[in-house]
């Protein structure tokens, strides 16, 4: 069963070493194609040229959720199936997911400035993305304070699961919270109407971001396996010296 073979770190490392250059090349290629198309895309009749920021903002939002999904599956791997690589996958995905969430927030804010007049508006979607970023920070803080790589695995897995359950609730409550204060000086931001000519660059950029995520994730998992191997060998060094 493929899952079992993959469970073996050394075999996984060999597979990653072979696949990584291909993924990196594919990512670069599609990203370049996406950028070219994004630049040539016509202005949107509503937002003018700022729609070009959408080509970064929307894919980044999708990838921030993909990141959390990967961590949730990995959490099940750690807690339920006891898969040895599950925690490695989760710990590798967290910083990358947080990175994409940050891209989404900053591009969203830069998109908001010309559109709404201020860098930050407590718009429902941006706010939910911000809460997702805070959840990422929580998991990163958990991993960061656990001294050695192995510890904190179960705790982070539980946090990822709870986060996954909590995100839809956050989405709903933020929408409610946002509509509640509809009266105040909140600009009701109509979502971008996806016009056909804009849809294509968006799809290509989304694929490029996805491939970028996979490439970075595989490389980060490889680093994590090496980091744990270093730790094991350091412990061995201590034991051997005592003998």
């Amino acid at each position, binding site marked *: 069963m493929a899952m079992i073979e993959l469970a073996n770190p050394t075999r996984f490392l060999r597979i990653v070493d072979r696949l990584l250059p291909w993924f990196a090349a594919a990512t670069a290629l599609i990203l370049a194609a996406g950028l070219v198309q994004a630049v040539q895309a016509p202005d949107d009749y509503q937002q003018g040229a700022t729609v070009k920021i959408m080509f970064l903002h929307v894919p980044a939002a999708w990838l921030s959720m993909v990141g959390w999904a990967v961590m949730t599956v990995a959490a099940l791997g750690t807690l339920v199936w006891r898969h040895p690589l599950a925690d490695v996958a989760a710990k590798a995905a967290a910083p990358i997911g947080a990175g994409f969430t940050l891209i989404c927030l900053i591009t969203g*804010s830069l998109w908001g400035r010309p559109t709404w007049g201020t860098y*930050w508006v407590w718009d429902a979607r941006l706010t939910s993305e911000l809460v997702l970023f*805070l959840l990422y920070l929580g998991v990163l803080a958990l991993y960061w*304070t656990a001294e050695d790589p192995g510890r904190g695995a179960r705790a982070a897995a539980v946090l990822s699961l709870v986060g996954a359950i909590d995100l839809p609730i956050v989405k709903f409550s933020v929408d409610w919270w*946002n509509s509640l*204060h509809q009266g105040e000086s909140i600009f009701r931001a109509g979502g971008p109407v996806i016009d056909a000519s804009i849809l294509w660059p968006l799809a290509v950029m989304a694929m490029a971001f996805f491939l970028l995520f996979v490439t970075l994730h595989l490389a980060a998992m490889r680093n994590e396996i090496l980091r744990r191997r270093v730790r094991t060998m350091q412990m061995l060094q201590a034991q051997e010296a005592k003998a």
Partner: protein
Amino acid sequence: MNAFWALLIRDMRIALRAGGGALIGAVFFLIVVVTVPFAVGPDLKLLGRIGPAVLWLGALLASLLALDRLFAADHEDGSLDILMTGELPLELTILAKAVAHWLTTGVPLLFVAPLLGLMLDIDPAAMGPLLAALSVGTPALTFIGLVGAALSVSLRRGGLLLAVIVLPLTIPILVFGVSASDLASAARAGFGPAFTILCALSLASLVLGPFAAAAALRHGLD
């Protein structure tokens, strides 16, 4: 004096390595301040008015709650005993640890503050005075918190007790800090007086903190 620098560098090295508490203060500050609009509501004008106060309360809590491990960690692994047999007077030993703590937990707050200023729609003109006040205020918060950190070693109770002990002592810093960084009140009372008094308080706590904490440590140890 290189004992002083050795201790300062050691504490920073521990804080910055994996497992150290370096950025935890800044993350706490970010999360506390971001949750305020969920309670207060997303009205930008209101947030803009209370922005500086929210930032200061966040910085106050972040500075204090990060302090409870300052002496407790050394007490638990036995380092505190050996530090007290050093040639460096205990007050300077505490000063070195406090400066290292401020550099690793206090300074990151100053980097996060402008970002949060955007979120709370604080007037960019107010960001300058706010950052000046925070960069003078956060060391004062750390140094006043030293007393609480020293007491929480012998009292075996961690962060929350520290905040309860120390919060009343930090009220002057809060009052002058917020008024120095709030455009409206700065317009009335003027940025100058509030800021200079804040500096005075900060310098006083720079001296008072280590001495009080040293006394607390000497008498508190069982």
